[in-house]
């Protein structure tokens, strides 16, 4: 069966030698043209490519380092009162000025960062862990256990969390440990709800069914199939939860329930700054600047992580 004509134009002249049979090309047939990256490699590549998220990460690391080292290498103590240098603006001696008691604001800022950041991170990580375990167990095992947990979550979710936090703070008294406890008591619910939802969804997916049919144990399914698929979401959620916890700490300290003086946090600094707003506004601007940039960096990093860790977006920009 050969042709006499072409659809458009003449039949081209082709030398006979070019009709030599060569058959399939085993190599090219199954060729994979794009490089093969693991999930985390791919995520890291995309985070690095996302300049905003990457700068945010660097800024947070910088703040963390300053929080650890800045108070150590300063000649002033964070609670050191100096009545001869009250309400001084930025200078070579006091880089960020002094407050109404003559305390050095540079040292107080980083001391406050230590408290605020550690509360934020510890509370967020604990919330994520507790929430993930409860939500995961509830979603994976289902049945009565799930029903009971969900009813409890339904009820707890309806209670204004700030009220519970405030009351717990009043009962436990101010201080870092009680702050963390107060933030955890209501904080895990959000994570638990979404982890449960994700696990329920994943449980129905064919790759999990396939693993079950092959006789893989529950524990292994959770470790090998469920966790890697929700890890990205948990990490993203965690990043977003840190600013929330810092927010809460600042708010509680602001209304006088969080950290008790002389210990200081960004919330305390903001509170003291607001008092001086009419006279020496920079005393508010300093903590406000650091609180806002931290929040901003964490939010932007969270956004970046969400895109970078979303398995559906893999391989795209």
């Amino acid at each position, binding site marked *: 069966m050969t042709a006499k004509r072409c659809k*458009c*134009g003449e*039949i081209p002249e082709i030398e006979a030698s070019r009709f030599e*049979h060569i058959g399939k*090309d085993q190599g090219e047939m199954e060729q994979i043209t794009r490089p093969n990256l693991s999930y985390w490699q791919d995520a890291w590549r995309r985070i690095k490519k996302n300049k905003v998220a990457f700068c945010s990460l660097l800024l947070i690391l910088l703040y963390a380092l300053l929080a650890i080292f800045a108070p150590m290498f300063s000649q002033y103590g964070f609670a050191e009162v100096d009545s001869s240098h009250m309400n001084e603006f930025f200078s070579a001696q006091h880089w960020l000025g002094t407050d109404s008691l003559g305390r050095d604001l540079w040292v107080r800022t980083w001391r406050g960062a230590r408290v605020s950041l550690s509360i934020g991170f510890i509370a967020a990580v604990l919330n994520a862990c507790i929430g993930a375990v409860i939500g995961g167990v509830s979603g994976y095992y289902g049945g009565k256990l799930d029903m009971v947990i969900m009813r409890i979550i339904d009820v707890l979710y309806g209670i204004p969390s700030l009220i519970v936090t405030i009351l717990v703070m009043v009962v436990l008294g101010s201080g870092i440990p009680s702050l963390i406890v107060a933030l955890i008591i209501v904080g895990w619910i959000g994570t638990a709800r979404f982890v449960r939802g994700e696990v329920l969804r994943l449980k129905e997916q064919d790759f999990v069914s396939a693993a079950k049919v092959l006789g893989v144990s529950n524990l292994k399914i959770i470790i090998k199939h469920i966790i890697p698929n929700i890890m990205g979401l948990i990490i993203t959620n965690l990043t977003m939860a840190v600013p929330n916890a810092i927010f809460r700490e600042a708010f509680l300290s602001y209304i006088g329930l969080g950290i008790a003086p002389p210990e200081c946090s960004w919330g305390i600094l903001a509170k003291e700054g607001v008092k001086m707003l009419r006279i020496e506004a920079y005393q508010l601007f300093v903590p406000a600047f650091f609180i806002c940039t931290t929040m901003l960096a964490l939010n932007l990093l969270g956004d970046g992580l969400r895109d970078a860790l979303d398995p559906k977006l893999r391989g*795209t920009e």
Partner: protein
Amino acid sequence: MSESSLLKIEDLTFSFRTYGGVVKAVRGVSFEVNAGETVGIVGESGCGKSVTAQCILKLNPEPPGFFEKGSIQYHGEEIITKSDKEMRKIRGMEIGFIFQDPMTSLNPTMRIGKQIEEVFASHPEISKKERKERAIEILKMVGINDVERRYMQYPHELSGGMKQRVMIARALVGNPSIVIADEPTTSLDVTIEAQILDLLKKLQKELGTAIIFITHDLGVIAKLCDRVVVMYGGKIVESGMVRDIFYQTGHPYTNGLLNSVPRLDLSRDVKLVPIQGTPPDLFSPPVGCPFAARCEYAMKVCREEMPPEFELSEGHYCACWLRHPNAPEIQLTRF
């Protein structure tokens, strides 16, 4: 060419700009559709068949997609240069479109009746009453019982097969001269699939609508179509009447597709023969025949030069170097 040619696509080339470069999804596709006939476009996933179909109604997102060259003529009018406003007059009323997945193709918050009537949304000359009459009538035609009740229902209250009937009703309500069906039965059960195909056949007879039927299933093509276009790697590799394609197969790829369809007339010992390998990456399509790498008959020239569309018989074209007069005579293996 012929007088009755309703839709004429010539050298259509459509690409997408992505971060990895330009993906040439459709590369120089030409075919035509005559009034009242059914043209099948067949090929495996990613061969460009859906993109081609969506080009006809300019449904591909632009950007990232863009027309590189070629023309699409409907009733002799160029589609590619039409504005969105002009396209709106054609969409629904002139050319209808049935999507693959009825589950996600209906708006979950809108009543069935309203969704069908939406086709008339840009046509104020049609009265409300008439719209409803048309919708009810078409719902009856696509075999939906209890129409008055269904008219007021939401998509989640309908089964998958029922939803696809609604989608068909929606595509037909504007009384278009062409309906494009993009794998309309792929996501349905086999029994439902048969019903839907019968329905399409019946409706076509009654309404005289031309159908462009996109599928990867040659069995469906045999059942429904007059002519077939076989696509591979963004190009048409073979086209012609259904009987020519099935019994005078010209292209090894078409042959491979036919060999991978289960048949009842063969003994059980005959195994299905898959086409080995995967389709080419359209980021950097091969210079020669896109199928060469997977073709057991491949020759030197296949890797080096794109074959032209050889005419095997009246209206039967095949883009394969085996059909060159100087090529060795080779019988394609059929089972």
